[in-house]
């Protein structure tokens, strides 16, 4: 391997892990909803987009400071999550999963339309708020936005894992996810848990949206990012938080290596090949719950 550019491999791998962190963050929002409510939320990319637009409205349009803008975007997204759950998802409780799935497909169109009505279809730029100097890990250069975005994503995922482990609401959520009937019988307010899940997931998605928007740009097509997230959560396991993390990092790395050594046109091919491979070996994803359904 004399002559192989190891430094480039290191830089590319760091970049892959960085973007994988963002996938993991968005994947976390998806998994939270699926885990608690069994809803496959195809509008996750658009929820992420809404968070970024709320941030844009607070900082660029209202002129608020960055940190207040982040808090406003997170709260705004939380409220949006609650409204979505109350108006669109809760009335569908007990209906066929495909019906709820189609509701989320419609929801994504509604959110895109709302953004186009309020902010238009043009690409917008978020104010630069992350440090802009290149980060050096050893001799390897890493993009600052990706580096700090990755740190934020890991910190948030760690927070969510701790909340699940120790907070009463988190325990209620896990109980609901395991067995709804048993959770009811133990006095857990299951509809409230559903609401809480959508609120928390929307808030997590908002942070993901702000980071993704600051790396790229804002536009109503930003929700396409959600498609990559779908791959991540299927690879990791639809109901597994650690799965979202591992799946995100894995997809990020594979995309990064493929893009560098084979070309950008092979990225999607590699990602979906990975998906097929994982599904053939582990149909429930790397960490997904293996359910046996008897008919």
């Amino acid at each position: 391997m004399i002559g192989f550019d190891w430094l480039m491999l290191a830089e590319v791998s760091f970049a892959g892990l960085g973007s994988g962190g963002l996938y993991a963050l968005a994947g976390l929002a998806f998994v939270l909803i699926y885990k608690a409510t069994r809803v496959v939320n195809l509008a996750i990319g658009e929820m992420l987009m809404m968070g970024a637009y709320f941030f844009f409205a607070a900082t660029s349009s209202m002129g608020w400071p960055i940190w207040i803008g982040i808090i406003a975007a997170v709260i705004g997204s939380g409220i949006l999550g609650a409204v979505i759950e109350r108006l669109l998802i809760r009335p569908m409780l007990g209906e066929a999963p495909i019906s709820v799935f189609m509701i989320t497909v419609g929801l994504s169109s509604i959110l895109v339309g709302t953004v186009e009505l309020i902010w238009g279809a043009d690409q917008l730029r978020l104010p630069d708020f992350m440090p802009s100097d290149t980060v050096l890990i050893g001799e390897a250069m890493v993009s600052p936005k990706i580096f700090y975005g990755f740190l934020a994503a890991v910190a948030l995922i760690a927070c969510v894992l701790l909340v699940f482990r120790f907070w009463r609401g988190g325990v209620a959520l896990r109980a609901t996810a395991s067995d709804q009937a048993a959770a009811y019988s133990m006095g857990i307010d299951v509809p409230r848990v559903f609401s809480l899940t959508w609120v928390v997931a929307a808030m997590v998605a908002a942070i993901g949206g702000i980071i993704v928007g600051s790396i790229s740009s804002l536009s109503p097509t930003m929700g396409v990012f959600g498609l990559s997230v779908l791959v991540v959560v299927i690879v990791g396991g639809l109901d597994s938080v650690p799965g979202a993390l591992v799946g995100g990092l894995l997809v990020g790395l594979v995309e990064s290596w493929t893009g560098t050594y084979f070309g950008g046109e092979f990225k999607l091919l590699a990602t979906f090949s990975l998906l097929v491979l994982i599904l053939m070996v582990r149909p429930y994803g790397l960490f997904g719950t293996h359910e046996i359904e008897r008919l």
Partner: protein
Amino acid sequence: MKLSRWLTVLLAAAGIALAPAAQAQEEIVIGGSIPMTGVFAFAGIGINAGLQDYFKIVNDAGGIKGRKIRYVFEDTGYKPDVSVAAFKKLTGANKISLYYGDSTAFSRTINPELERLGSIMMAGASLATEINDPKKFPAQFMAGPDYSEQIGILLRHIAKEKPAAKVAIVYSDSEFGRDPVNEFREMSKKLGLTVAVEIQTAPGSVDVSTEVIKLRRADPDYTIFHGYILAPIPEFVTQMKKSGSKSHFMGTFWTMDSSTVMKMGEAGDGFMGVMPYRYYYDTSAKAPMLDKIRQLHPEYQNTPYLQGFLTAMLFVESAKRTLEAGKPLDAKNLKAALNSIKNFDTGGLIGVPITIKGNSVPVGRIYRADMKTQKMVPASDWIVVE
């Protein structure tokens, strides 16, 4: 009453009845599938305003050989199927001679229909190289250089500024992005430039860090972006500049609107690109048509507006030449009239007189972003692709 007198009365009555119809036929109807909403709305709204303004100027001055222009359009949302439906609806309800189409997909889809009808000449927002083929697209044209010609203009400028320079192209994995890549390779070779790297980005990709790593290692003197409006260009430029790269960054027409480039912020300072028209605020030379536009609109008008305006000028000039030759307004005659345009003065919209031999106007100029004044300033003379 004698039979002959009856006939005279009947003919007179028929004449009165047909008079409004005859008058309506006097109008020249121009149609348009315009993306007033959707992802291309920023361009569609400008294009529409440019077309409308020039038609109004012509109508206020008495029309084309006394015939007024009537412009009819439908919003397409930048969807080819909706564009085709709009075309069918508008051509079904009006006798249209000239038409504006909104995309390459529409230009390609509607081409057999244009050939079948034989009555309409079309121009549009598409600057795709394949449309610039008079044999395959005999009834179409574009009011600017196609993407390959734009790359040619950029490379000519580079070869003049720094002979034997290392050049790179970063393009999106889309039909739009891939369009001029062959021309980039061939023209670079012809001009003695070295291709440092070609980088393709996946559509909708958010993070371009890995692509930046590749670009940084290739260390090009010039980097051309194509197939994007804005993202991911600012991220490329920022990361490259932060890593100490001295590369000059360039774009093609749809990136080059002043407001788009200014969104790049500080990192965009010095960003260059090819522009077929003078910017709205460019007062570096006499431009009576731009003066007129500035009188109509004291506020900035974007580059798609100028594209729409010039397209309208070429529509009108073709119709005028056809009528002056006493020929009917059909696709063949209109296109022949368009191709008879030699050394045409655009009133300063383009800095040199234009000649249209094929389906494009192969002229452009390099402009550079000056973030201090928040304006694009000329960085080259006008370059004509032969």
